[in-house]
């Protein structure tokens, strides 16, 4: 950005009054920041626990294999706390198992993104000469390429299934992380601590691994939280388009798709998975946002 960014903290510290103003506002926002971080984090933990742990200990009906005789039961029916869908499957359990899919996809895509994309981006930003030029161009192409097409094509080509969704969506996350890592590397590369490291004779790969990478990590992690939300939404989209987890398997996306047909008579079939998606992604976004605020205040 070309507008000079005013470092409010530094400028205000010129006067003690200003410094204490900054100190004070930091104290007040420290409480706010903690709340802003731990509340959604707690919600997320709750969701993860509900989806992964609760079916193991609680009394949850299976998400698939329901009998048509049980179709269309309303919420509150014993054994089916939220009712059943058109195939007689328990909605509550489908929500939980669908959540598993979403969370797994979200986590996996981001991990692949950080590892592969972060690495590529870091190398692209840190290297010089031909390697840098080539990588830059490749990254540009990847970023310009409509990843949507890629994801659709791959999902279509590989066929439905959670693992294929993860591969397909990784083609989305890897360039995103690569771009982030490259930009951050370019910014960090001329900083004093990097120059100091290189002047001390440390080989470049060591500098990259032990000095550069740790400084990239916070931003990448924050981005991962936000990216997980995006991936979960995309998984939902793919499943909605019948490219993700195929029915009868549970996924929030395909629950929405099948629920759409009876939306006017039984909106809960659509509303519940929509809400689940919304709450999970919102929690991820809130948490990612709080982390970013906390780490940039330093």
């Amino acid at each position, binding site marked *: *950005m070309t507008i000079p960014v005013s470092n409010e903290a530094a400028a205000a510290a010129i006067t003690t009054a200003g410094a204490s103003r900054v100190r004070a506002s930091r104290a007040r926002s420290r409480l706010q920041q903690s709340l802003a971080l731990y509340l959604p984090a707690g919600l997320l933990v709750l969701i993860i626990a509900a989806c992964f742990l609760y079916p193991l200990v609680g009394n949850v009906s299976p998400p698939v294999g329901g009998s048509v005789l049980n179709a269309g039961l309303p919420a509150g029916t014993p054994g089916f706390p939220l009712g059943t869908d058109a195939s007689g499957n328990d909605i509550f359990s489908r929500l939980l198992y669908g959540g598993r899919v979403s969370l797994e996809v979200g986590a996996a895509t981001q991990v692949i993104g950080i590892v592969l994309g972060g690495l590529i981006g870091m190398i692209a930003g840190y290297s010089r000469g031909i390697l840098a030029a080539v990588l830059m161009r490749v990254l540009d192409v990847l970023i310009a*390429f409509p990843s949507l097409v890629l994801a659709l094509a791959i999902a279509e080509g590989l066929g439905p299934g959670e693992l294929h969704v993860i591969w397909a969506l990784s083609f989305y996350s890897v360039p995103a992380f690569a771009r982030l890592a490259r930009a951050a590397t370019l910014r960090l590369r001329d900083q004093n601590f990097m120059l100091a490291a290189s002047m001390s004779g440390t080989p470049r790969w060591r500098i990259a691994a032990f000095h550069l990478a740790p400084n990239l990590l916070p931003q990448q992690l924050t981005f991962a939280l936000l990216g997980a939300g995006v991936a979960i939404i995309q998984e939902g989209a793919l499943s909605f388009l019948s490219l993700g987890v195929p029915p009868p398997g549970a996924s929030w996306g395909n629950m929405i798709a099948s629920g759409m047909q009876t939306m006017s008579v039984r909106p809960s079939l659509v509303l519940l998975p929509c809400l689940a998606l919304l709450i999970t992604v919102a929690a991820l976004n809130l948490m990612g946002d709080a982390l970013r605020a906390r780490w940039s205040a330093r």
Partner: protein
Amino acid sequence: MTVQSTNRTVTANPEAALEPPPGTRSGFQGPGLLRSSLLRLAVRRLLTAIPVVWGVTFLGFTVLNLLPGDAAQALLGADATPQEVAKLSRQLHLDQPFFTRYWNWLTGALSGHLGSSLGSGQQVTTILAQRLPVTFELLLFAFVISLLIAIPVATFAARKPGGIFDSITTFIALVGLSIAPYILALLLILLFAVNLSWFPALGWTPISGGLGSNLRSLTLPALSLGFPIGCFYTRLLRADVLEQLEEDYVTTAHAKGLAGWRVLMRHATPNSMFGLITVVALNVGTLLGGTVIVEQIFGLPGIGEELFQAIQTRDFPVVEGIVVVFAVLVVVIGLLADLLYAVLDPRIRYDNPGQ
């Protein structure tokens, strides 16, 4: 105008020409110079963009080819005999080696022919011409909605950060940007189309059918796309405006005795737009991606829907054509963003930054 002639007199005057203190650019920065530096910027960016677009087309072709599944097979259906499939493959030139096909496509594309759909035989360019306007209109509408949300809300919220309006809108924005477009689409349909019947749930009325119904048919889809993005922009803009309000020139503006709202609207907000421009340009891909499902849900005949069908039927030319369109769009919008920077920020415009 009088002023212009005065200036010209000043620079034409040899004594005045010796006068300007060091650090200033000599000569008068007239509009002609401005246009040429903008033009140079545009040309430079276009040149670097060409290899990228080419790379994109190549990558697309490669990916599509690597996909399992045969286009001819897909077209004829599962119970076609191998001979029939082979015959169709030959007809559609699908049996030729990869590079030959790519070369044929590339040369064709450069002369403006993007091939024809494997399924319908229609010219890809015709298909694109039919469907692009729909998607464009949808995207434009969504973009306008997002700005209509972001700019007023962010500006107003920045007036009293931490206040009631700010807290409420921040929370709504955070939740709002977590809503996937397709989720919002369904919720909107439930609310407005099914229950209230204010807007149609399906279908697209072209402008020829009346501007009113054209807009009505696009309102819900545009809202589904525009609202989440608008929330995202709101947060960004609010942060930027708050940052600008800490700047010294804002203190100067207050010291001049300007009213608070004027300081905001005339000084802080305009200078906060740069971050927004960057993000808008970066987000084009996401917006385009959103159109696929939204068009599906609302039954809009746009390229999103076409893309989805084409991938399913392995219709290479169509997919490739859409890939090109997407890539060009991203590049063009990136270029427009750069140009907009230069227009809005005078410091970029001049090669020599003065000091």
